[in-house]
């Protein structure tokens, strides 16, 4: 019950932010030169102005920007995200088709980065200033500094073109008609390269934070106490230090869950995955306002939900935080 009321309170508090974001974005896009009909004209290589007028009417662009915004918000309170100009179907449906791919990619690479970052961070902290620490820190920095599209392309060159082990792109085998477990395995096989590519970028942050956090916690009094009462080193690290060192990591995962939605544009393009990032990019280029606003709306909701879950997790990890509620 407390969780439910907390969730509702959080959602209510986020509503004004959401409206401001949507209205702001709408107005910002009005400042960009050209509308979706110009983008369409560019794509189809020209057409006469009478046709353009006809298309503007068709896309509902023949009224003032404020009237359009009013119309949009009115629809939004009825949970209607409007029609997508690029796809000619409801935005909610377009997003629903793309969301699973993005969530799958985001979830798997975030988990991979989190798990590997935690393990490597602990290892580096335990081996402070010895060669494993130097190696891990240097590699982390290299991964962090390398642009993701380059990683992706090099992965394709090595594992798809040269070695032929993995597919160079796509979400699944087209027209293979696979079902059930076979299909799941096929999708997993296609997602290996993109997941690793995306995870490598985020890995560095996690491992740096974990390393620093471990070092700090390991120097605290209660760790000395744990050692003094004769616990083995593994027990000290896992049971006492790790749990406390996790707090900044959990904060970070909440923050990154938001950025990962946008950050996957590059990876989705390189690996030809039908995700939300690419949809957002196409919506901007094609000036498809409804779709873009829809994506922002869904992303914002997702960030709110994830942050709420993170707050709940804080309470689990550190009872002192929950007690204040």
């Amino acid at each position: 019950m407390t969780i439910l009321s907390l969730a509702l309170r959080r959602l209510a508090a986020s509503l004004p932010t959401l409206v401001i974001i949507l209205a702001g974005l709408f107005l910002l896009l009005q400042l960009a030169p050209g509308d979706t009909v110009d983008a369409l004209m560019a794509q189809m290589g020209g057409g006469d102005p009478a046709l353009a007028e006809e298309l503007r009417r068709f896309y509902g662009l023949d009224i003032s920007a404020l009237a359009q915004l009013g119309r949009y918000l009115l629809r939004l309170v009825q949970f209607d995200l409007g029609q997508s100009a690029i796809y000619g179907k409801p935005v909610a449906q377009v997003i629903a088709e793309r969301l699973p791919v993005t969530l799958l990619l985001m979830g798997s690479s975030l988990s991979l980065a989190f798990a590997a970052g935690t393990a490597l961070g602990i290892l580096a902290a335990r081996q402070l200033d010895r060669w494993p620490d130097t190696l891990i820190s240097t590699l982390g920095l290299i991964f962090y500094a390398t642009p993701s599209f380059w990683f992706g392309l090099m992965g394709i060159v090595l594992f798809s073109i040269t070695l032929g082990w993995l597919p160079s792109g796509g979400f699944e085998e087209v027209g293979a008609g696979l079902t059930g477990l076979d299909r799941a395995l096929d999708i997993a096989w296609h997602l290996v390269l993109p997941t690793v590519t995306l995870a490598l970028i985020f890995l560095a942050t996690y491992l740096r934070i974990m390393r620093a956090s471990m070092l700090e916690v390991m120097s605290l009094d209660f760790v000395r106490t744990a050692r003094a009462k004769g616990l083995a080193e593994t027990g000290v690290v896992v049971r006492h230090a790790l749990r406390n060192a996790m707090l900044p990591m959990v904060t970070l995962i909440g923050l990154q869950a938001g950025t990962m939605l946008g950050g996957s544009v590059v990876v989705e393009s390189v690996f030809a995955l039908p995700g939300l990032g690419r949809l957002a990019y196409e919506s901007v280029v094609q000036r498809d306002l409804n779709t873009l606003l829809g994506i922002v709306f869904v992303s914002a909701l997702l960030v709110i939900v994830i942050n709420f879950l993170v707050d709940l997790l804080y309470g689990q990890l550190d009872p002192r935080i929950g007690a204040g509620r």
Partner: protein
Amino acid sequence: MIINRREAIRIAGALALGSAAGSPAFAQSGTPKRGGTLTVQLSGEQRVLNPAIRASTGVYIVTSKIMEPLVDLDASGVPAAVLATSWTSAPDGKTHTFKLREGVTWHDGKPFTSADVQYTAMEMWKKYLNYGTQLQQYLEAVETPDATTAVFKYSRPMPQNLLLRALCDLGYIAPRHVFEGTNILDNPANTAPIGTGPFKFVQYERGQFIIADRNPNYWRKDFPYLDRIVWRFIIDKAAAAAALETGQTQLSTYNALSLADLDRLKTDARFTVTSKGLEANAFNNTLEFNTRRKELSDVRVRQAIAQAIDVPFFIENFIYGQGKPATGPIPSVSTAFYTEAPPPYKLDVKKANALLDEAGYKRGAGGTRFTLKLVPIQNGEDVPLLATFIQQSLSQVGIKVDILNLDSAGALATVYRDWNFDLATGWHQYRGDPAVSTTVWYRSGSPKGAPWTNQYGWKNDAVDKMIDDAAAELDPVKRKALYAEWVKAVNADIPVWMMIERTFQTAISKKVQGALNMPRWGSGDWHDTWIES
């Protein structure tokens, strides 16, 4: 010529690559084999897949396999029978009668008749088809005396060769029974096309792929050879090249790969890289002058600018030699209209400086005469390169150029609707006949906001008259002569400079046979295409 270090490196690299490139001859051999799947890479999605309301290579590359036009080009580039079997024209050029193919059925089983032609022409081409609306503006009615005859009635003379050539692109027929009584722009058949073609639409998974399967009831008996065509969306050009190399796709066309990858794959024995099969889609790199700007209203300034830019150097070093200096707005591949001539302007910096001095624009402080704003209209990766090259070249003759970078929607609105530019550079696409989409670049009176038309405030009554006369001239020989005269006039006055003549490039696996065998093959029906095992 001022070249910075990064460009010098790029040029050195380009030269090294260029010298290694050979061009293996494209060979077609063996007996055609039934079966197999052809996978084609696409670099962008289309909003609709209906070529009767949208003329664009992005639509044709998919739907021309599913829907068919009245006529299409044959191997030698002459319009040949498809859904129309024969045609006659009245001497006054106002009536054109098409005999239609019998026994053709739509994919949903309904028969194809003259009613479909009438409906498509009047309700789609005339109302919603880009370039079709202009082409058919004087079309008054399509009469259907019987199920296999369609009579096109025009209020002004329409040259038969213009109509037939244009109909290869602008003559796709849609099923009347599917569209009649609905909102045409909103009809679901726009993204799930129903046609008469060799392949039947199966599935369109947004952002991923489109599938079409063999039509067993196709009117060309025993065709097509292929069982299935899959189009896969791969936006990233480097990833598209990787997909081709790993065999995930067999075809990338209309410059869907980067110029560097096209150049690299030329030397790969598994692939053919060629402009063959796309000759009908020639295009130019352009430089448009806004003559509302005082300096640019002087023809001497426009000519000076054209002589300050080393076009052959750009072609060789920036676009891997994929093009040649244009001789005017009609490309050399358009044999029916092209008249041999040298490029109108060559690099001559001394002359350019003299012309600018003569026009009264002396160099001021820092050697600058005046500043111009250049808007690149993003069509391909070469456009921003050319914009930078123009900027550097013009700084040599004392013209400072500021580049305003926008995406394509933004550039289109800025140049053609707001007229907020001094110079613009992009592509002019030639569509088989100068009257389709080329003369509009020069004809005055184009309504404000029409992209890729004369929006530069330039008006020349003599040129306007030539354009109108040529469009209504029924004798092909006289028509060609009129266009030759017109090319000379617009080259001299250059409101827009056609800088480079280019054709699109295809990269295709050598396993694909029966390919590239006509000048608009990328937009063809692929009924005779097959895959070697």
